[in-house]
């Protein structure tokens, strides 16, 4: 994992991020020991369409936050690009950089702002899952809408979630 974007995140989130990342790696290494393949295809879809937990979790987290600008199913809107297209050209590092730090695109016709989400636990605790979901969408591995079937929440994911979200769930 590239440290470039992590340096810009504050220490609290650095810690949180590391925990969830480790959770993600251990979960995926159980299915696939080839790390480079995991990077290219960070998801697993069974022949019957059952998605792994990260893809499903990415689906639901995406549709609670990102979809207001990037559209349902990652398809974009007049406010923000179609991510199923963007991820054909972006690396994961570039993706993370934009999510954490935001981005401004100014043209003569419009001013587009991607907010910096580096301090949003609802995004950063699940960013690997959101990426996995969007990558699966971008690759055409899953269709639109809620995945019809998905693997249940593994213990590692529940533990990583508890550690990352901490007491930030309201007063």
């Amino acid at each position, binding site marked *: 994992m590239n440290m470039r974007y992590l340096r810009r995140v504050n220490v609290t989130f650095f810690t949180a991020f590391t925990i969830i990342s480790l959770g993600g790696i251990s979960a995926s290494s159980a299915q696939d020991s080839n790390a480079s393949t995991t990077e290219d295809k960070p998801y697993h879809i069974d022949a019957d369409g059952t998605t792994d937990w990260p893809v499903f979790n990415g689906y*639901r987290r995406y549709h609670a936050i990102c979809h*207001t600008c990037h559209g349902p199913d990652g398809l974009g809107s007049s406010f923000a690009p179609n991510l199923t297209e963007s991820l054909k050209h972006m690396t994961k590092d570039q993706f993370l950089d934009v999510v954490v730090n935001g981005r401004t695109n100014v043209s003569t016709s419009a001013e587009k*702002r991607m907010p910096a989400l580096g301090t949003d636990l609802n995004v950063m605790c699940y960013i690997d899952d959101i990426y996995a979901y969007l990558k699966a969408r971008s690759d055409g591995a899953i*269709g639109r*809408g809620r995945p019809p079937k998905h693997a249940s929440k593994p213990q590692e994911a529940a533990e990583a979630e508890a550690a990352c979200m901490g007491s930030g769930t309201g007063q």
Partner: protein
Amino acid sequence: MARLWLSTGISMSLALALASWSPVASANDELLKLEKDPHQWTQPAGNYANTRYSKLDQITNKNVKNLQVAWTFSTGVLRGHEGGPLVIGNMMYLSTPFPNIVYALDLDKNGQIVWKYEPKQDPNVIPVMCCDTVNRGVAYGDGMIFLHQADAKLVALDAKTGKVAWTADDGDATKGETGTSAPLVVKHMVLVGNSGGEFGVRGKVTAYDTKSGKQVWRAYSMGPDSDTLIEPGKTTNLGKPIEADESLKTWKGDQWKIGGGTTWGWISYDPELNLIYYGTGNPSTWNPAQRPGDNKWSMTIFARDADSGKAKWLYQMTPHDEWDYDGVNEMILTDEKIDGKERKLLVHFDRNGFGYTLDRESGELLVADKYDPAVNWATKIDIKTGLPDRVKKYSTEANGEDNNTQGVCPAALGSKDQQPSAYSPKTGLFYVPTNHVCMDYEPFKVAYTAGQPYVGATLSMYPPKGDDHLGNFIAWDATKGKIKWSIPEQFSVWSGALATAGNVVFYGTLEGYLKAVDAETGKELYRFKTPSGIIGNVNTYTHNGKQYIAILSGLGGWAGIGMAAGLTGDTEGLGAVGAYKSLSQYTQLGGTLTVFALPD
């Protein structure tokens, strides 16, 4: 009038009273007179009672079939165009979605643009608007046009020149507090509610002095009585006095501070009772497990004294919401007979699928019935306690985090959302644009970060089992709680209705049709396909003695985001409905005003 001013002055500082004093007729006098003039459309809802009824009768159920487009106007803005234009004298005023342009058009000069106001707003506000960057229209009063911008600023513009008279910061957009609603001018005040229930914003309504922009009063939806302007022992809930700080007892710890209950719907006003009425939205977050308690006073109808903001009575429709059934829809004020007795009524079609009729003076609940038979989360509302009889199977709280509760009707969009209904005193019927949509709702753990989404659930939406349409346009008898007729619509009806003395009712559809139907029978009499899907509200006025019908088209809003793309493809529930096709096959984005008239 003098009497009212005196009583107002007592509750305000002397300076404020002097500042708002004017030798000419006050806004109250002017607006009370204007709302009785059917030739103009001077308030977002047509009148203080929010009936969206016009006495104009040139266009009738006999001749409406001959209606033609008189003129059109492009707003130059994409995204969802909710609300509609005002007509004051020879001028028409309309606002657009972000960037919230206001146009003043001269009807004497074929709609020539007299002035255009475009605020400079930080585009960072766009991602903190949950359900598209809509704006539900401007308000008029005291020679000014009031705009509630996306960035939560309230701006007073000189109606003649468009010059900014004053600006008030109603909220902090960096914390997710935004503006989408139309303001309402009452007496010397302009009232405005806030948006941001998906960002942990605390709902409130604020009254500003129309002349100076200074705050007159502010009433929060939740918190201590000093914030909610509830008077313990005096303010009533279904006739019973409210205990001290009752709101605080229904939240865990300090959660009320990020408790939602935003006030982004419509406000109505009864000048005789001097009460304003509005509803509050969903408690934050959408994950009910994280906020135990009744979450008062989210999902609540408020009646407040217009001068002081103090709560006269209130009624919470959906305690401890589990489905995002905001209570913000319009409160329509009518005088009708119930059981032979003339009553001052308040009629409200809630997102939760029940049509409520209350006595607007006492807050007594008289009728509460389903206005869409598909509603299943509750079997009925107990008229005495006001509580819904919930069905456990559809409880997202009982089913818990990370579990998908299936088949809940209505969907979070509600059996109706903000799209306002109309009421005709001629027929005694309410004309209600409705959604006929069910959902799966999966709540999950969510953390609060100021200015970031605080949602905590994901939803799938689809038509009720066995149905192939997503909306109905219905006629409702509020004294009996009965549907008189119902017109199935392929998509949700997300457009505000208009009823006229010509016995015609107008509404728009998401495919883009403006439709005219017979007020008695619901028979379709006319349709015209506008350039984009309609989520705006129909109005009517006359110019040089001729009646016109005006409507904004421009697909978007929650309907546009959620339905144009979210309800397509091979998702569950839809497979059986072969007829269902994506809205994007019918229409595209783009704001246009279309004005209709009969041929000369």
